């Protein structure tokens, strides 16, 4: 399973993802980390991923924040990957709603492997 993670401070959550991958995914999760929206390049290539995990507060160095990134993906014609939001703000889904965007499962910071699993469980994906 290919996952694109948009997170500019991945170092703090790296072990959580590794542990999740080891325990629940048999290390089959292939994730790539992007520190900004522009570091991904052409967003149309997101259709090559099964899932994208977006930190809503991407760095100010990023051309798009998490909301804009989700909005762009929602409005594009590509086959959309499943979306999970990484955030410290619990009211993020209300923000999405006010912007006319859909709701997505959230991994609330501080992150741990169980929170990641719960978010993945939302999509009922066979991780093994």
């Amino acid at each position, binding site marked *: 399973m290919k996952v694109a993670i948009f997170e500019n*401070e991945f*170092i*703090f*959550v790296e*072990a*959580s993802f*590794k*542990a999740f991958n*080891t*325990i629940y995914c048999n290390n089959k999760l292939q994730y790539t980390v992007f520190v900004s929206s522009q570091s991904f390049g052409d967003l149309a290539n997101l259709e090559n991923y099964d899932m994208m995990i977006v930190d809503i*507060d991407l760095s100010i160095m990023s051309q798009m924040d998490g909301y804009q990134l989700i909005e762009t993906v929602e409005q594009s014609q590509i086959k959309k990957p499943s979306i999970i939001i990484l955030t*410290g703000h619990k009211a993020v889904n209300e923000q999405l709603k006010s912007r006319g965007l859909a709701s997505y499962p959230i991994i609330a*910071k*501080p*992150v*741990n*492997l*169980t929170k990641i699993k719960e978010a993945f469980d939302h999509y009922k994906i066979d991780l093994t």
Partner: protein
Amino acid sequence: MSLLKTADYAIKKLNSILFRLVNLICFLIICLSYNNYFPAYIYFLATIVYVAIYLALFRKNKIGRFLRLINDFCILNLILYGKPVNELGVGLLLFLPLINTLNHSTHNEAKPLPYKVCFLITVSFLIQKADFRINFWLPLVVITCINCLIYFRFKLMGYIDTLYNIIDKFYENNFNIGKTHNILKNFIEKHNNISGWLKRFLPIRELFIFRIRGTSNIQLLLSSRFVIKHDFSQEETFVKKIFESKSISNWKVSLDAYETSFNYSHLYSYKGENYIAFTVFETNPFSPTLKLYVERVLNPIFNRIIEIIHVEHELNLENKRFHKIIKKNHDEINDALNAIHYLNNRLSPITNYFEMLRVLPTISSEETRKSVEELIQIEKNRAINNITPIADKMNQMAQRSNFAHVSVEPQVITLRKVFSLIRKSFDEQDELACTIENHWSDETFRGTTQMRVELFEFVIDELISNLIKYSKGKCTVLFTFDDNNVPLVKFINEIKNYDKVRANLIKTVNDFNQSGINEILKRKSRGLLLIKTNLLQLNLVHQLSVIDTDLVLTLTPIA
């Protein structure tokens, strides 16, 4: 209708009645003094008909005004018929309506040359077969001239009154702040609506108000038409000259694409600021009239407009000050959000470390367990490394919260001002019946204290919210003294359900009276915390106590 026009209309009505009374008296004198052509009863009946027609037409405008005039001339001709109209004393009676022309009691303005009246006088002279003597026509000319001058005087007064009304209306309609340019726009509209002669003498096209910044920079403040760019040729020379002579005519100024050749600039100084009232004319105005007009008519109006501009300027400064406070608060919120973001990220390794420890025993595969144990070791080190930055950040935030309101500068204010601030806050609310009792003397009121006024107002408003929450509906604010004659303010609140809340109240009082905020912080009540922290910031001595069934907060406003 303005006060001037209303009063003028009422006076005209009264004059109209008086004029008819004078007419009747004159008729009586002439009938008694000369041989009458008709029998007496004809005159008597004619007088009754005259009065009746006048009363019937009294409230009628337009056509009524003309019919009243015809009525006057009918009876005049009847009375004078067969009498020696060539005698000055009799013939002058025909000129009476001319004197009355300015009093034409309608809302329409009188005409400077009453051609209808002149025509009727001429016709009357023909009916009466009077000789055309110079001694008759001289009064006609003189009275007409006087009428013209009176007419112009009224017209000018009405014009000035109309212009002043623009400013009054500006306040009345409450479209004031930020729309002062409407005054100039309305000014041009009203000026252009004024008929004929004034417009011809003073063909005003546009009005502008500029502010002189420094020694040369001219800034556009208001204009009767939207202008993007203005350019005074030789700006520095212009500023120098206007400071010397106060007014300049026909300076070369371009306003967007339009270059004015006929203009008049006048300098106004108000509270340290220098303004230029700049009037643009269609054609070159007649210069003696211009000077008179600018000095007597425009100056008072521009002075008032400039006062309004100044008030707006002051309000803008006040707004900017509040914007700065809002910005600071906004920055503080942003800082807090960034801190939360920072803490959330650094707490991740710690929470994940414990989560992995929790999950570890449930893992059955030895290989997975080994990998996880390695991860636990890595996460443990990362967690340890993050504890110090987390603690530092939290301390930093705690430190910042102590300075949350320090930006409000303290100022020296009188105790009278303290009294006014408290009274105003209580007056502005209507949920609590509050009695204000004052024992302070004039001397006490003159005493001063250092106070952060906005913060103090905030505390009082917060206090009122709390009083309302726990009150029976009545409270007293007592301005009094302690045993050492130090001025105090006591807020005495009659507590509702006192028996039920007594225990909690005593605990609240104890917590509140502690020197710090630690005890109050433990409570759920945010209002009391705000009051306590801000009273500490204000450095005001404060004491909460329960007296009988009342809760009393005592403040010592001399910090």
